[in-house]
């Protein structure tokens, strides 16, 4: 367990390059705008329902605010807005996935708002296809890979890339569409 965790901490990109031994990793998937996304389950700290947040003044719109997670101040990020998808109202099914993100300044705890949690898959790195190059316009560094599960595409996200940086690059809807078509 521990070694697996360490490996995923450090070798996010070497996984893309492929490993000799056939190890499988578990991914938690969630739904957002009818697409299925996956994150390494070892990074998931907990799954919570949406609760009201304290907004941060002058923060980018996808940063919804901060919550009190048992005494820790945790920022909440709306992944829809982060991806430039259309906004939806938060309902009883809206879910916050609390993740542990490794950044240059050490581990951070952050929450992401998604439409709904879907499933847990065991995937080996051989199943994973690297994200296609979509040109300079589209930043795909946050995509760890694409996987077909039951003939449905799951986009595996690299959490450290996605949420680690202080400045968060824009990811537009069209980029995702393009991605889907090219797959």
């Amino acid at each position, binding site marked *: 367990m521990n070694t697996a965790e360490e490996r995923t901490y450090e070798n996010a990109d070497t996984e893309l390059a492929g490993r000799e031994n056939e190890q499988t990793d578990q991914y938690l998937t969630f739904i957002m705008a009818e697409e299925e996304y996956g994150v390494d389950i070892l990074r998931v700290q907990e799954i919570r329902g949406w609760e009201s947040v304290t907004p941060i*003044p002058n923060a980018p719109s996808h940063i919804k605010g901060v919550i009190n997670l048992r005494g820790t*101040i945790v920022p909440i990020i709306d992944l829809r807005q982060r991806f430039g998808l259309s906004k939806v109202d938060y309902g009883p099914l809206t879910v916050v996935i609390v993740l542990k993100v490794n950044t240059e300044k050490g581990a951070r705890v952050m929450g992401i708002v998604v439409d709904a949690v879907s499933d847990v898959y065991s995937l080996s790195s051989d199943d994973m296809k690297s994200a296609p190059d979509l040109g300079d316009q589209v930043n795909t560094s946050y995509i760890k890979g694409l996987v077909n599960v039951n003939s449905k595409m799951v986009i595996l996200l690299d959490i450290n890339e996605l949420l680690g940086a202080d400045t968060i690059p824009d990811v537009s809807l069209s980029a995702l569409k393009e991605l889907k078509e090219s797959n």
Partner: protein
Amino acid sequence: MSIDLSQFHQVFFEESFEGLQTMESSLLDIDCENLDSETINCIFRAAHSIKGSSSTFGFTEVAEFTHVLETLLDQVREGSRQLSQDHIELLLQSVDCLNGMLTALQSEQPVDTQQSKQLIEQFNCILNGSEPEAAASESASAKAVEETAQSKEVASEAASSISNGDITTWQITFIPDVNLLRTGNEPLRMFRELAELGELTVTAKLDNLPDLPALNPEECYLGWEMYLDTREDKQKIEEVFEWVVDESELHISVAGGLFDFEEDAGAAESLESAQPSPVVEVETPAEVVVKPEKPAVAAKAAEATLGPKETAKTSESTSIRVSIEKIDSLVNLVGELVITQSMLGQLGTEFDLSKLANLQEGLAQLEHNTRELQESVMRIRMLPISFTFSRFPRMVRDLSRQLGKKIELKLSGEQTELDKTVMEKIGDPLVHLVRNALDHGLETPEDRIAAGKPETGTITLNAFHQSGNIMIEIIDDGRGLNKEKILQKAIQNGVIIEQEQLSDEQVQDLIFQPGFSTAEQVTDVSGRGVGMDVVRRNIQELNGGIEVKSVEGEGSTFTIRLPLTLAILDGQLIQVGDQTYIVPLVSIVESLQPDMNLINHVAGGCDVFRLRDEYIPIIKLWEVFGEEPRSRELSESLLVVVEVGSAKVAIVVDELLGQQQVVIKSMETNYKKVEGISGATILGDGTVSLILDVTDLVQMAGDQQNSKNGLKLVSSKTWAA
């Protein structure tokens, strides 16, 4: 049996630093004519334990050095040597040197042995002067190597022989790829370069040479075996082969050595003391490369590589020493808390209304216990300020010599306790203020006598508690602040205009403005870059303040006010729109309902409010933070006047809620610094509330004022965005 000693390193460093501190303060106490044997014993003991433990941990340099120091102290202790002022000076220098060495070791940096070598020389000179016994240790390092018997390994001896600066014979085997010549590399050129480094002997290996008919003149069939006698290190040799190393077989080793030495600057450093980073790499058969700081450890590390892992990096962790009484009181309080909890629990299981009084009593007790527990826990973080003050006697002593002034330092209130974090951050500003007082404040003995003052100047450091704050005073009886000079400088810098009428207080406050140094010449001691504005800013970052009072010709008093702790804050809850914010109570001057007649709108989008005889800029929090307020009309809002230093701003809020103590949580742990916000806290109902950073807000108001003066044409709208 092997024990991983690195787990004790932290303790070793702490103890050693403590020992050094003891040595330093004792050395400063010594009176040469009237030697107190207990003081000498105290210094000796500290030195001895540093030596003992450093050799246990394999920090040979430290052990070697302390050994020589100890020899001298031992002679003084036995009475066979008279201690002189020069000795004390030398010993103090050694303390500094040891401090540097230990700091380097702690951060896993290579140790600079140059200074220690010089000091060892000096000690040996003194020791050789009379003692035949000490003469035996003509090579202190050799003796100390033997002394620290741990480093018996061949490698360590080989390594130390290199660092002793002998010429090393390197054995180089170079078998290039057949295509070497095609890539434009010329072996002859490399040999010339090597010959420049020292004495080179080359033997060609002809094993692969084919018969003449089969020979392709464009291919290289030769290999070479070389012996190079040089003072240079391996890196220099490798540089020669830099272009070909990938496609050739290359072995560089110390001739006759058991290990392949990769030595970077280690030898060169002791010879030329030019390169600051001695790193020795030892290649073991297992091909694990470790990079210890020094040769002696190299042996230990080589041994360690037989184990499963590489030498792990010890992360630097800070720790705190807590007196056992504090822990005991904590244990007592927890005991009481448990009793209260069980009482309430019992009450809860069989509760009826008749027991309401009991319940209320129990809850009151619980509150009492919790508060006491909180205070006790906070007290654990508190340290007496003597930790910070203790560095000053030495500093004043050194500086007074350097400046040729006679200075007496008085310390009082050293037992005043202060939060560890605050203490760490106040150190540098204090040093700056004391240096300033020494350099600019106090006059030379001649000037003092001329002014009818005693020849010896006095600097007093005083710490005490005052209404939930800690106050630190730096008092000197020097020349005081020169009002004329300050005014002149301020006008010159454009801080004020010539006609401006300022009170004495306001003039004195000017020295905290950026770029304000009245020192005519920049000296080594002060007046370089870091100005009083930085001092003030550092203190304000701690939610504190600094003031100066000065009488010309009689001296100056700087007073620093600091909160006792950074973890808890008395806060005023305010409401803006839907959000609740917290303003630190210390910075609030007053809260009031604005009289619309006293509010003026200044061109450029800034409102000012006249509070008695002052005009105060108004900050609309809803505008700055992009909130929707209950009302945009000032007449329906409240003003909270806050003060930082001497600047005041009025914050417009919808409502004042209540006051409470809040525990400060960092926003930076999981997010980042937010402008205008110093942190967050959790309110009674579990929601997060943000704490306003008043300093930030005042600066924002300053920007607004600049725009008002036409320096920066930014409307408050864009500034808010």
